[in-house]
């Protein structure tokens, strides 16, 4: 009984150094998640600023239209489809690195969701705060930077972290462009050993541990921030 289990463990993870598929895959998953989150933060922030500037002042009409289109298309289609379009259509003729392709695809995707999170954060700050800033003589940009953003940021952090947790799990579809991420790594082991249970359970466990750690981090952060606000 136990020897059968050890045999299975040996076959799936030790023989031919198969555990490398998991560790290398994990590395790819983490790199893709980290950099697409970063790209998404920048993209989302810019889009949110454009959208709320238009809502508040009526300026940047065309940019706002473009942002609206971006949000509609990205949030209205599956991320796998976006990933494949970027890899097989947009970069069809230039064979660029798969990791980079995945970062761009997930970054563009996450940017749309983060934009809406930022925007809801900005909108959650009472209008009176904006008027108080303006009445002191701050211009629109200064009011945003000194008064609105710091308050919006506190509201947004927990939601933003949840978006990163979602993103981490969503990158598991990167195998569609044959990128060897964590999920794909487990899948490769399965195809070599013809046993599905152990490699897939191992993959699931690794995701779960990472998500639990991140969730813990969010709750600590959340407590810190609420202590700082003292409303």
């Amino acid at each position, binding site marked *: 009984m136990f020897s059968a289990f050890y045999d299975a463990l040996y076959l799936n993870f030790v023989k031919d150094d198969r555990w490398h598929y998991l560790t290398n895959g994990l590395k790819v998953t983490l790199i893709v998640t980290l950099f697409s989150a970063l790209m998404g933060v920048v993209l989302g922030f810019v889009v949110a600023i454009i959208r709320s500037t238009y809502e508040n002042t009526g300026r940047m009409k065309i940019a706002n239209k473009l942002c609206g289109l971006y949000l509609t298309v990205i949030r209205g289609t599956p991320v796998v489809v976006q990933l494949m379009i970027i890899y097989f259509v947009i970069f069809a003729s230039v064979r660029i690195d798969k990791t980079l392709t995945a970062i761009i695809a997930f970054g563009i995707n996450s940017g749309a969701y983060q934009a809406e999170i930022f925007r809801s954060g900005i909108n959650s700050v009472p209008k009176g705060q904006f008027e*108080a800033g303006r*009445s002191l003589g701050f211009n629109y940009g200064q009011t945003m930077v000194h008064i609105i953003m710091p308050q919006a940021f506190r509201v947004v952090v927990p939601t933003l972290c949840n978006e990163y947790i979602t993103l981490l799990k969503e990158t598991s579809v990167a195998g569609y462009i044959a990128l060897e991420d964590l999920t794909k790594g487990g899948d490769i082991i399965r195809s070599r050993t013809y046993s599905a249970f152990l490699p897939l359970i191992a993959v699931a466990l690794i995701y779960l541990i990472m998500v639990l750690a991140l969730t813990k981090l969010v709750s600590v952060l959340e407590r810190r921030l609420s202590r700082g606000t*003292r409303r």
Partner: protein
Amino acid sequence: MAQEDRAQGDVLIRVEHLVKQFDGHIVLNDISTEIDRGDVVCVIGPSGSGKSTFLRCLNRLETPDGGHIYVYDDVDGDIRHGIDICDKTTDIDTHRQRMGMVFQQFNLFPHMTIMKNLTIAPMKLQKKTQEEAESYASELLSRVGLSDRASSYPGELSGGQQQRIAIVRALCMRPQIMLFDEPTSALDPEMVGEVLSVMKDLAEEKMTMVVVTHEMGFAREVANRVMFLDGGDFVEEGEPETFFSHPKSDRLKNFLGKVL
């Protein structure tokens, strides 16, 4: 270049044919008046009469749909140069630095300490050093009796204290006029007095003030002019004594009959 005008005497703000409408509904209907240096003008009227809108037009928090608001803050001998702040080309931010505003809901910045609330605008906008800004803020804080709250956050203060801080925040910019938008309406009754007394002190120091209020006692005691707005019309104005004792128009008589 913004439209200019010249005037003599003590006029600080001249409002000419001010019109404001929201979605076709006329809120301010051809309002004209003058506010002199040192005036304490109380604006009263039923709710929805346009008095807050009138006040908010004075620093363009609401954009007027018609008319002119000349601010004469550039003194050159006897001649004052007025700039029309309704003109889109006028740099409104510079003007707002010299017009303090106090809101019904205080609108202190909740993420900053009281001291930071008071010093951020002078430091960022008037390039004051931290010492300059803090020493002036401390001086004003002690005058409203809140020196010990400098390192508190707004959320830790009572409504009355917050509103006194809001007045000080506006004063830290050394404005030449203060606009008050129902400053005591959101306060518990026992806190109204402390805020009104700060405003009274300000009036005694000859600060020019425009106060939208429901406090008839304050209007009567402190104002040198009372304006009555009703349905967007500027119905009547006068010195408080005659205004309250001998109202001329029926609309004012009717209103006073309800509130006094």
